[in-house]
């Protein structure tokens, strides 16, 4: 088993008498790109603040890179991009990075080389001497990312790193994250962008109303949750056939093992429960003169997982 990098063990956090995190536990292992998902107000940012030692938990234990977060040196090898970038507007990009190099106690000989490397990495070399106040949201996010990686952290904590960034910028930021992961860094990525998480993360946790509702390897979760779902590709061509397909939805839903049946253009998505009989479904469709071109099992997207778990909370 890989080394645990972040460990939350039965963490509870209350703020102003309100329960924000309710007994949450998860482990982020070395080399993980860990996606942390949840609706607004679910407790994502509070979790990040707990991990970064900003909020002490009311109960439970939190450790980062093998050290309790109560210790300031637990953050020695942790890079971060918070929801608000926290950059100094009236300083240039170079000055912003230089300030953090000094805060981290980086030797002067290494400093300027490292700053140049980071600015190059995020594509801001030509704007290094511009004040941050003149930067777009995307450029600010990239600079915050550069700041987070200034001294080769072992763990990167990213809170919505592509929020407000244009699509090209999103691809660049995502690529930077993937490159960091390839260099052996562990990444904790809190995001609303399900597509981003699906493309980059190998493990996820889903928090809702302060509780971890889902946690594990993304592929495994997709296949486990998809086991009870089938997608039927039909060969409908005419409007009349389409009407037939609409009519069959109710009939399929009446089957005792079909929990739901949704039509999406030529596709039927069925969620099954208990002992199911797919051949009976195919037979019903054939009786209605609907051609079945393909039956796929277990196809469930992260979006569907998310919707299923957080139903009714947003």
């Amino acid at each position: 088993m890989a080394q645990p990098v972040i460990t939350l063990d039965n963490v509870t956090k209350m703020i102003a008498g309100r329960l924000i995190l309710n007994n949450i536990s998860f482990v982020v292992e070395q080399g993980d790109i860990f996606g942390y998902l949840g609706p607004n107000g679910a407790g994502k940012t509070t979790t990040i603040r707990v991990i970064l030692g900003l909020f002490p938990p009311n109960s439970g234990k939190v450790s980062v890179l093998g050290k309790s977060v109560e210790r300031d040196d637990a953050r020695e090898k942790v890079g971060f991009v918070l929801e608000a970038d926290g950059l100094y507007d009236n300083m240039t990009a170079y000055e912003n990075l230089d300030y953090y190099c000094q805060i981290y106690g980086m030797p002067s000989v290494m400093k300027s080389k490292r700053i140049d490397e980071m600015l190059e990495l995020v594509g801001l070399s030509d704007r290094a001497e511009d004040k941050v106040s003149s930067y777009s949201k995307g450029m600010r996010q990239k600079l915050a990312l550069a700041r987070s990686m200034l001294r080769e952290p072992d763990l990167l904590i990213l809170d919505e790193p592509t929020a407000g960034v244009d699509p090209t910028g999103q691809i660049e930021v995502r690529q930077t994250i993937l490159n960091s992961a390839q260099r052996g860094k562990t990444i904790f990525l809190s995001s609303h962008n399900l597509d981003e998480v699906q493309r980059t993360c190998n493990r996820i946790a889903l928090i809702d109303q302060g509780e971890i509702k889902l946690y594990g390897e993304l592929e495994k979760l997709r296949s486990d949750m998809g086991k009870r779902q089938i997608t039927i590709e039909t060969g409908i061509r005419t409007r009349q056939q389409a009407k037939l397909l609409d009519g069959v939805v109710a009939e399929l839903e009446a089957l005792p093992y079909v929990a739901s049946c949704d039509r999406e253009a030529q596709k039927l998505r069925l969620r099954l429960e208990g002992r199911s009989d797919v051949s009976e479904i195919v037979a019903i469709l054939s009786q209605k003169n609907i051609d079945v071109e393909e039956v796929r099992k277990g196809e469930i997207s992260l979006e569907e997982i998310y919707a299923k778990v957080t139903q009714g909370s947003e």
Partner: protein
Amino acid sequence: MMKQIIVIVKKDLKETLRTRAFYFSIAIVLFFMVMLGGVVRGQINSSIEQGLTPAEVIPVIQPLMGTLVFTLSLLVMMLFCLYISAYTLTMEKIKHSLESLLCTPLSLRQIWLGKSLAVFLPSAILGLLFAFAAMAGINQLFIAPQIGQSVTPGAAPLVATLVAAPLIIFFLVTLLIALQLIITNIRWINIAFMGLIFGVGFGISPFVRLGSASWNIVFISLAVAAILALVTMFLSRLVTKERIVLSSKG
């Protein structure tokens, strides 16, 4: 530890020098200096009109110079710390730069001390600089031409100026920074600032009358500094990262 604190101090000082408020407070101080120069000039003239010899004028002028240097240094220090501290932290909290700083391996005490020193050092240095510049200017312009020599303050006001006044300002600044760290509402911060500054001013003023420079000023000032230190120590328990982050909501 000290190295990182100096980094914070240097960055904040640079930002302070970029603000208009800093130069505005210098203008106010210069105005004060001209006013006080006028008071001393009037005192010398009235002494000479009463027929006192230059040797007899010196004992009259010396305590006046003492209280003037002490009062001016304290006033200037308070003015600068008010303007400088009002700027640094408020902006960092609004822009959430402080939250990022709190996520670094720096301890909360390092950040607090760094921010406090960034306000205290320029306030204290400028306070002393302006006070002694005023003393030199008054000597040069009004005293030396009238009585043929310069007059310096006695030991008590000098100790009060060089030791007690900076101590008062240091603890006042740490207290102001602590309040800024944990209070959300800018209006409440401003009220607390004004309350503290006027409180310190009125606390000392009954003992600092022009021409009555004695060791009382030193003892009273040290007592005020001690009270501020105690209040700061009490308040330090309330200064937590959580409180700072939660009070940074804009």
